[in-house]
């Protein structure tokens, strides 16, 4: 069974990911955090990352969140990508539209109006 180290540059954390797992599954199955988790189906764009080094295979992702130029620059959805080498990545998505996050300090989620 082949397993690779995935390093999240943003916080310097890393986790081990089987080549049979997506980058998101690998992170989630170890109870790790670092990449935000959304639909896990390539549709919502929440787990958008940029792979800085390393190789991978990928599946179809929503063009609403990954444009062709994004894809050319290694921007992918972590739920659709499986590693074929060690991976260094940077988090891009981070629930940009996550209105909860905007008011987290008060501990009360709020929706924007």
């Amino acid at each position, binding site marked *: 069974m082949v397993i690779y180290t995935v390093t999240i540059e943003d916080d310097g954390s890393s986790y081990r990911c089987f080549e049979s797992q997506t980058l998101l599954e690998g992170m989630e199955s170890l109870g790790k955090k670092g990449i935000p988790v959304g639909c896990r189906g390539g549709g*919502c764009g929440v787990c958008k990352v940029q792979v800085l080094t390393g190789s991978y295979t990928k599946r179809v992702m929503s*063009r609403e969140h990954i444009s062709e130029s994004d894809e050319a620059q290694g921007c992918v959805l972590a739920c659709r990508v499986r590693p074929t080498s060690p991976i260094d990545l940077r988090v891009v998505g981070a629930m940009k539209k*996550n*209105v909860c996050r905007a008011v987290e300090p008060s501990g009360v989620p709020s*929706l924007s109006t």
Partner: protein
Amino acid sequence: MAMTGVLRPGHAQLRVLDMDESVKFYTDVMGLVETGRDASGRVYFKTRAERDHNSIVLRRADRAGLDFFAYKVLNKATLEELDGKLKAYGVVTERIPAGEMLETGERVRFQIPTGHTIELYAEKTDVGNGMTYNDPEVDVVDGKGIRPIRMDHALLYGGDIDGSRKLFEEVLGFNLVERVKLEDGATDLAVWLTCSAKAHDLAMVRHSEDNKLHHVAFQLASWEQVLRAADIMSINRVSIDIGPTRHGITQGTTIYFFDPSGNRLETFCGGYDHYPDNHPITWSWEHVGRGIFYHDRKLNPAFLSVLT
């Protein structure tokens, strides 16, 4: 109300990224019945118990989400009457000819203030539910997949939910069942509307972006069926958002999960009956966590922010 106008949710057309994978999911995991494929490549499904030809239509696209959500109305006269009322209200309507969707009559299509495309139609072929209209057997729900009773409602996210609510109330005869107020105590964060005696036929949440889908929901018969659905989801490694749990709002038991393209679905059971003389229930911001998830008593970030 007497059921004379808009009867019920009729069909939802969903965009999927990979058709083969999606057909397998809706057939084997959801337990829906494929009823046809059209020249444009769309695939049609219904639940086993539904009599009309289709309730879920899948269209392959490069992004996930909802193309349109439709309600069935009583008859063609009602369709004409409601088209007239929409126009008088200032809504631009479009006629989609019969047959554009398989086994489906003429549709009246329009956009609501939250940017979603809604359709009304009166006719869809009754292909039956496997039982006869004469001396039928009891429908024993067993076999492969979740096998919901019906496609039940949708939750839509968009900006002007006040405008969309008024349109559904004033033109299409929907009633307000429950609402959640924002911190100011005045603005609606979310509303639940019914066109029948169900707890909801449509829900809407105020959001910064228009024309977004939160989920399409399927009704199950019991809490045990909800738990069985959760088992089937784990057996098939389906992406679960939250649940099994219960809502304070509508009081339904629920699981939220995602189809293979990231469209959120719900399987739920219960919810009380609503009649037009019932006063709407109002939830304050202080209790929204308990309102949405009665057991956790808090919202999860993905529930609010993950949309297609």
